[in-house]
């Protein structure tokens, strides 16, 4: 074993020792999760966007009192402790709440959801686990479903259809064949056949961003590199200055993408490839896990608590519930509601997740999302710039929060 291998063995051993201990009630939590899934017939929603919420403690229920713990909630309440739960989202932002059944006509389960417009959602279905077989438009007013296209899975596909995006009258997604052959597909939103419009080499991670910008497709790959191709199909060309870079939101790109190393701010330095303008987020020495979006950054202070602030360093607030290391920060933030249960001395583990709260970090308003432990819908998507929808299950309904409809 050479030096590197020896160091690796040692590193993994020490790192393993830093894992948090299992909560006391792990077996109970697993049992509850198992039963929920059986009863709901595995109606699990594959949330689209970058990720969700395994975040930390925002609020704890103590008896009947909902109390912030330990971070302050950025509400108008001057006190660090809020003694009442936020009102339900149907009251706070009724215009943003849409519902649809978990099962489509014919019993198919909705898997991914994207926004097409105020009245229409893009939804996908699977033939088998992970294998998307069709993409539909769902009309929220008439509750009618219209097939847009079948989603083929060519022989040799190792990364199934992922990254559905809408733009330029098309729906786009990507797949990858064995041997690192990435493929971008396109189908007309009006309905029609899906076709491969771009073929591009990828590594095991595939593509990490895909977007329509005018009459072009822009994308970046996990291994690094930003490229563009005609919307109608054709060879991909590297974007000038895009070598090794990742797409944040066209025309902004950065060297350290959402999957990059954690020791430097992700999308801390970004560049506008159309104007050449650059922007470097203000960060302090010793801050960790910094992730930035176009407007906001989140990260952790050396002493522990997470923060949310503007890229220029202003408007800093504590981030309720902590951050997820992969979520691109924006104006909205979600955090779990925790109830007190038996816990290990000195550690927060063992508390039960009872629900979730949506925070508007700009106005300070917050709302109870209505997710409860008995719902299968503790599965949620995390909103980001391109995908402004929060999706989760409550009872037999999928609830879709359209963040673009929050003023």
């Amino acid at each position, binding site marked *: 074993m*050479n*030096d*590197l*291998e020896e*160091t*690796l*063995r040692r*590193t*993994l051993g020490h790192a*393993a020792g*830093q*894992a*948090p*201990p*299992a*909560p006391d*009630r*792990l*077996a109970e*939590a*697993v049992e*509850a*999760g*198992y*039963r929920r899934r*059986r*009863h709901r*017939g595995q109606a699990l929603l*594959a*949330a*689209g966007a970058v*990720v*969700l*919420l*395994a975040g*930390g403690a925002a609020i704890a229920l103590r008896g009947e009192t909902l109390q912030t713990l*330990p*971070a302050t909630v950025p509400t108008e309440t001057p006190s660090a402790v809020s003694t009442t739960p936020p009102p339900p989202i149907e009251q706070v932002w009724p215009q943003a709440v849409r519902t649809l059944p978990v099962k489509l006509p014919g019993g198919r389960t909705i898997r991914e959801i994207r926004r097409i417009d105020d009245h229409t959602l893009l939804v996908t279905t699977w033939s088998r686990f992970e294998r998307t077989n069709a993409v539909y438009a769902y009309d929220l007013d008439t509750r009618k479903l219209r097939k847009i296209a079948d989603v083929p899975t060519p022989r040799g596909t190792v*990364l*199934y259809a992922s990254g559905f995006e809408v733009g330029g009258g098309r729906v786009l997604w990507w797949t990858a064949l064995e041997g690192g052959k990435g493929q971008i597909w396109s189908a007309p939103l009006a309905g029609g056949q899906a076709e491969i419009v771009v073929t591009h080499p990828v*590594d*095991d*991670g595939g593509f990490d961003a895909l977007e329509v910008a005018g009459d072009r497709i822009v994308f970046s790959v996990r*291994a690094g590199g930003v490229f563009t191709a005609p919307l109608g199909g054709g060879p991909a060309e590297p974007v000038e200055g895009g070598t090794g870079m990742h797409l944040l939101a066209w025309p902004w790109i950065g060297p350290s993408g959402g999957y990059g*190393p*954690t*020791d430097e701010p992700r999308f801390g330095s970004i560049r506008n490839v159309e104007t050449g303008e650059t922007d470097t987020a203000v960060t302090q020495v010793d801050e*960790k896990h910094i992730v930035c979006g176009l407007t906001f950054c989140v990260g952790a202070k050396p002493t*522990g*608590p997470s923060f949310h602030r503007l890229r220029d360093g202003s408007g800093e607030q504590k981030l309720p519930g902590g951050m997820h290391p992969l979520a691109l920060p924006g104006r909205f933030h979600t955090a*779990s509601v925790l109830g007190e249960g038996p816990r290990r001395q000195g550690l*927060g*583990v*063992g*508390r039960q*997740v009872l629900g979730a709260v949506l925070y508007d970090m700009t106005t300070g308003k917050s709302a109870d999302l209505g997710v409860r432990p008995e719902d299968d819908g*503790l*599965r*949620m*998507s995390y909103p980001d710039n391109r995908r402004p929808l929060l999706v989760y299950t409550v009872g037999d309904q999928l609830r879709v929060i359209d963040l673009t409809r929050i003023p």
Partner: protein
Amino acid sequence: MTETRKGRRLVEPDSRFAEFVAERGDALLRYGHVLAGNPHDAADLVQETLIKLRGAWPRVRAKDNPESYARTTMARLHIRAWRLRRRELLAWDLPEGEHHDVLPRGDEQALWQALATLPRKQRTVLVLRYYEQLTDAEIAQVLGISRGTVRSQASRALDKLRAAAPEAINPQPVRGDAR
């Protein structure tokens, strides 16, 4: 013994499953931590795996080793998870404000951070080889890939680590004897 509800088979609770979770939960979280690189994803991975194991418990207990089933499932789920980029809310919470990413030695810290840049499959192969101490043939079986792929993934991963964390090849002195 089963009960039926909505036509689905519900495997009855077995106290031995609860015992298994109580005894092995910490070890699985440690393994999840080195696979995923952070406590959040590690907890997700363990939760998802244990729910699967719970459903398969009578079969797994009769035929296989539950721990080995769990570890194989975690490795496979970890590789697969990124395609879906989805996450389920944890049924338990992680300690707030504690960071588990600082290792005592500089070379280890550099290597830990470099590991975060590897594609999941490459990282998983390294974890199976250097943390789980599996042979390449065993790794191939766990991940359902060929031995050649195991070797090429491991070699590419080590090359990347070598480039990203040169201090890990020539470890710094532990303490005191630096000039």
